[in-house]
């Protein structure tokens, strides 16, 4: 589990830091650029001068002559050049905004939310956290031009309204080729002016990921703990569809949603078939999900039939379908071609049983949070059977 948030061991600053967002430079990425750059000290050789801030890895002697110097905790020793941090003005609080080597950066825009999902992995807070949005603007300005994927999450990012739209326009301007993905409950798009604003960003590489947990209000609203959610979300999806915007639907699979998964698939295929893709997601046992284990936990192998049926329905309607965060041994082989190895690398771990599994490299493994609850049917797949079924090319259910 990689730490993304921490506190410095020591901060020696001449005055409070003039900015919060810093792009790291190490010897490998050293150029003449100094603006918004902090130098990362990784050895005891002489440091290049001209930087407004220096960060030293844990375990190194701190050079005396540097005016603004922060010592990183051991858990942040993995940082390297082109990573981007947000640092409190006293040099203590450190948030890692962007890891250059990761393909799965997601930028937290707010922890505020108008939902309270039973399985929320990022429990909502109510305090004003506008600085997170400000940091995001700075981050987008500092990111290297070749950044491939930029993901925005929350809380509910659309709570910022036009602020979010401005950020997305900046993304399009500075990173026109990047794939931009925003997670949202979609409700704000039920106001067509907002859907139009979104569409006016005019970024063909932009997609919104919207959760759907039922075919009618009673179940969906209960799962997200908000009345009126289903109707507004679907209305929002329709408005986005009219504006030809790219949409991903996300269904988190647990005891409440898995039994009606085929019906959800039918609903999607019949009512909103224009969506670009559907992601069927395994449950992450962190945040609010832990408090709701009895309501939510179901062994994935117990919904195998529903999963196969739902994938079939979507696939035959030519809707691109993907299964995330499921261990391969728990789901039928016929749906393996739809799996994506997806657990963010800062979250994943493996079970002892996995050490002898022949498909371990194709399997996403577990969330680290699985230690709280995991299936007791995890079983290594023996090599003979996996050789016949080299199925990770597109094949039919």
């Amino acid at each position, binding site marked *: 589990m990689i730490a993304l948030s921490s506190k410095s061991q020591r901060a020696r600053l001449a005055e409070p830091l003039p900015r919060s967002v810093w792009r790291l430079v190490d010897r490998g990425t050293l150029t003449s650029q100094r603006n918004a750059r902090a130098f990362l000290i990784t050895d005891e050789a002489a440091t290049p001068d001209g930087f407004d801030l220096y960060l030293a890895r844990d375990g190194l002697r701190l050079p005396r002559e540097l005016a603004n110097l922060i010592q990183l905790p051991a858990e942040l020793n993995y940082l390297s050049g082109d990573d981007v941090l947000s640092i409190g003005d006293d040099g203590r609080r450190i948030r890692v905004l962007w890891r250059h080597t990761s393909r799965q950066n997601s930028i937290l825009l707010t922890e505020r939310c108008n939902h309270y999902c039973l399985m929320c992995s990022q429990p909502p807070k109510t305090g004003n956290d506008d600085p997170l949005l400000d940091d995001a603007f700075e981050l987008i300005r500092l990111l290297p031009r070749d950044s491939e994927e930029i993901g925005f999450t929350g809380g509910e990012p659309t709570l910022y309204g036009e602020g979010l739209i401005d950020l997305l326009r900046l993304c399009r301007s500075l990173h026109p080729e990047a794939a931009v993905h925003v997670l949202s409950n979609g409700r704000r798009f039920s106001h067509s002016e907002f859907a139009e604003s979104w569409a006016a960003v005019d970024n063909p590489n932009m997609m919104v990921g919207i959760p759907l947990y039922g075919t009618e209000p009673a179940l969906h609203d209960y799962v997200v703990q908000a009345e009126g959610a289903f109707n507004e979300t679907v209305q929002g999806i*329709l408005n986005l*569809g*009219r504006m*030809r915007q790219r949409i991903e639907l996300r269904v988190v699979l647990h005891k409440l949603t898995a039994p009606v998964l085929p019906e959800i698939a039918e609903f999607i295929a019949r009512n909103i078939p*224009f969506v670009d893709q559907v992601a069927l997601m395994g449950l992450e046992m962190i945040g609010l999900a832990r408090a709701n284990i009895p309501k939510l936990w179901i062994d994935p192998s117990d919904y195998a039939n529903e999963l196969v049926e739902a994938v079939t329905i979507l696939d035959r309607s030519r809707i691109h379908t993907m299964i995330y965060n499921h261990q391969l041994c728990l789901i039928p082989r016929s749906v393996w071609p739809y799996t994506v190895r997806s657990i963010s690398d800062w979250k994943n771990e493996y079970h002892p049983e996995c050490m002898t599994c022949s498909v371990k490299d194709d399997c996403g493994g577990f969330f680290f949070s699985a230690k709280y609850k995991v299936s007791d049917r995890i079983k290594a797949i023996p090599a003979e059977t996996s050789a016949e079924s080299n199925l990770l090319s597109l094949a039919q259910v």
Partner: protein
Amino acid sequence: MTERTVSFDRAAQSLDAVQRAVYRLSDRISCDIAETGETIEVTVHIPGEDKDSEAVLADLRNEVLDQVLRERIRTETEDVRKLVLAMAFSKTGLTGDDV
């Protein structure tokens, strides 16, 4: 050919419902329908013997009940049906062919 008469209370079953039921069963029976003040009298002509007639009459009575239900559903949903079709064919409000 057997002839039997079934009586329907006009207050509970409309003439339309009875006619629709009779129409549905017209592959098996033919009927004369007469209205009196309070009832609809249906004289049913059933090919074959009298022993077959009970089953056919039971089907007729059940079909009339189903037609009464259909009539109620039709009436209740008539306005909404028009609304849906008006929306479906309107030029404004719904744009694009793929949505």
